[in-house]
């Protein structure tokens, strides 16, 4: 019966919406994302050139902040979702009511979906609109559509971390343990895996061709224009082929990192942002939305499957578990 799940969800939602934890994360996100649009727009001014799509430039900057905040939001909502109730003894009081164990998990998930959806949508829209006003850029309908897609995948990313952290929380007796494990996994996916990936790249391919880097740096200044005059086509080709192989290795190593898949999607969506390698592919033009969605289909699937797997696992662990 979903009635009980909704009763639990309603209480949970009120608790979360009024919690300091949520407002802290949302506040930090707004601050960082708006501040970082300044630093990108500043580097443009130094470069003396306008971006191909200023709006996409702003959005991609916000997306790179989101790549950190969305997982933290998910973890913040989930790490003590079950273990906290267990620690405080409220789980016993809940489970002594005429409800099913599923109702407790369902209530938590419903509330989390609402909170994550609301927080990410509102804070993204807020930071995008503030940035638009501050930098006075024009917005097209296509931009709006891209931002909506970005919001959807950010919610999925956050929810993926929620699901993972909930899973840990279901069998953990201590919220501190489940927090440490969840943050550990986040650090692994967000930082360590990309470091490992660059080590492996260098081990397999050798260091990147030095002249190619110089070429790259020269071309980078003229944003979006790889064919700088005076650079031999062969060197450019050497550089590009190194980058392609590096991206391949990275995609294999990071196949299980949802952060990587998320970044792949937002990168294609907004065209600019550097991948986790620091010198990932830079597409000069922005692909159309259908092209983005179809070329990034694998990333999208992984991003969606990940939370489903952990939700199912959470169900299995929690409903099988016995509580004295």
């Amino acid at each position, binding site marked *: 019966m979903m009635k009980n799940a909704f009763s639990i969800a309603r209480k949970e939602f009120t608790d979360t919406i009024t919690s300091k934890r949520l407002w802290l994360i949302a506040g930090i996100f707004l601050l960082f994302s708006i501040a970082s649009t300044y630093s990108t727009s500043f580097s443009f001014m130094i470069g003396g050139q306008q971006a191909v799509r200023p709006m996409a430039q702003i959005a991609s900057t916000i997306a790179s902040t989101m790549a950190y905040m969305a997982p933290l939001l998910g973890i913040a909502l989930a790490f003590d979702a079950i273990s906290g109730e267990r620690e405080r*003894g409220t789980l016993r*009081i809940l489970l002594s009511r005429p409800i099913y164990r599923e109702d407790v998990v369902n209530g938590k998930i419903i509330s989390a979906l609402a909170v994550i959806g609301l927080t990410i949508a509102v804070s993204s829209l807020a930071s995008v609109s503030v940035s638009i006003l501050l930098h006075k850029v024009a917005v097209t309908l296509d931009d709006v559509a891209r931002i909506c897609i970005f919001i959807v995948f950010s919610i999925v990313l956050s929810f993926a971390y929620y699901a993972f952290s909930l899973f840990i929380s279901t069998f953990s007796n201590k919220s501190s343990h489940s927090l440490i494990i969840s943050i550990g996994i986040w650090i692994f996916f967000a930082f360590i895996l990309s470091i490992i990936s660059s080590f492996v790249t260098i081990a397999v391919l050798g260091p990147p061709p030095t002249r190619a880097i110089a070429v790259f740096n020269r071309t980078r200044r003229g944003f979006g224009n790889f064919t700088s005059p005076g650079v031999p086509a062969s060197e450019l080709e050497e550089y590009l082929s190194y980058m392609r192989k590096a991206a391949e290795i990275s995609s294999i190593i990071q196949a299980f990192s949802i952060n990587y898949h998320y970044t792949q999607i937002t990168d294609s969506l907004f065209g600019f942002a550097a991948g986790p390698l620091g010198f990932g592919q830079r597409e000069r033009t922005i692909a159309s939305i259908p092209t983005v969605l179809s070329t990034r289909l694998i990333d999208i699937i992984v991003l969606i499957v990940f939370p489903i797997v952990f939700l199912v696992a959470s169900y299995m662990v929690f409903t099988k578990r016995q509580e004295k």
Partner: protein
Amino acid sequence: MSLAIETEKLVKIYGNGKSMVKALNSIDMKVPKASVFGLFGPNGSGKTTLISILVGLLLPTSGSARVLGFDATKHSVEIRRRVGLLPEGFGFYDHMTALENLTFLATLDGIPSDQRKKRALRALETVGLKDRADAKVSTFSRGMRQRLGIAQALLKDPELLIFDEPTVGIDPEGAAEFRNLVRRMNREGKTVMLSTHLLYEVGMICTHAAIIREGRLLVQGSVDELYQSVRKEKGFRYEIRVKPGSEIPLQEIRSMPSVVEITQSDNRVTILSKNDMGSSLFSLITKSPYKDLVESLTPVEPSWEEIYRFYQEGG
């Protein structure tokens, strides 16, 4: 006699391999309807495990339990609809008030929305917390939390109440109020089962009791039956109070056939006898010279310590 709770060969094993603990070892327990049933046992004897199985929080390793006619493994939701439980080690939502906590729990109990607040307030009143209804639980003392715990078990006005160590942390006055509450509910025809490791608590309110040790029920039955069987083994004891300053001749009592031992201190004479000799003692003290010297004659019931020791040593 119809039963509120009945378990059959209930076994619960925690863990496996070397760390295996047999918390319940073939428990056959019968709790009659409209009784106050005390489950007495020392720490770690399996009380909480047994209670948790009854309401479906834990699954038995083998055996079965029926509560109010429902199977505890298959229909635990139906059981929880009818049973008010005070679990061990429970907690409340500290950031919410006592009333908010109870109305939320009343929602999950399936109490219609227009009655939740009324029921919650009534439960708070019953446990003496009505004037703290709007205070946050974080401001509550341990004893107040325990009272709130009792209140949440009363919300749905259940026909069976199961309390796991209800009086821990409650002051003597509160404990006395709790015992009155239990008696009152029992008069209304409700069944109350409570676990305790305090022997005197069993004696004070229970009509029935069971002693559990290391996962085994050593004995169960009505309190009278338990007294009786201990008396049969250990003898019957009577106390004669003599008027201050006077003494009674003891030869006649000593010559009665089943008397084992007579002890005398101040104005008290204690007689231990193999058999029930209440009526013969009574007719004795109504004769002279006793009738002018004796103030009272009372049978001394075995203390719960004695009963417990008796059954612990194997009955």
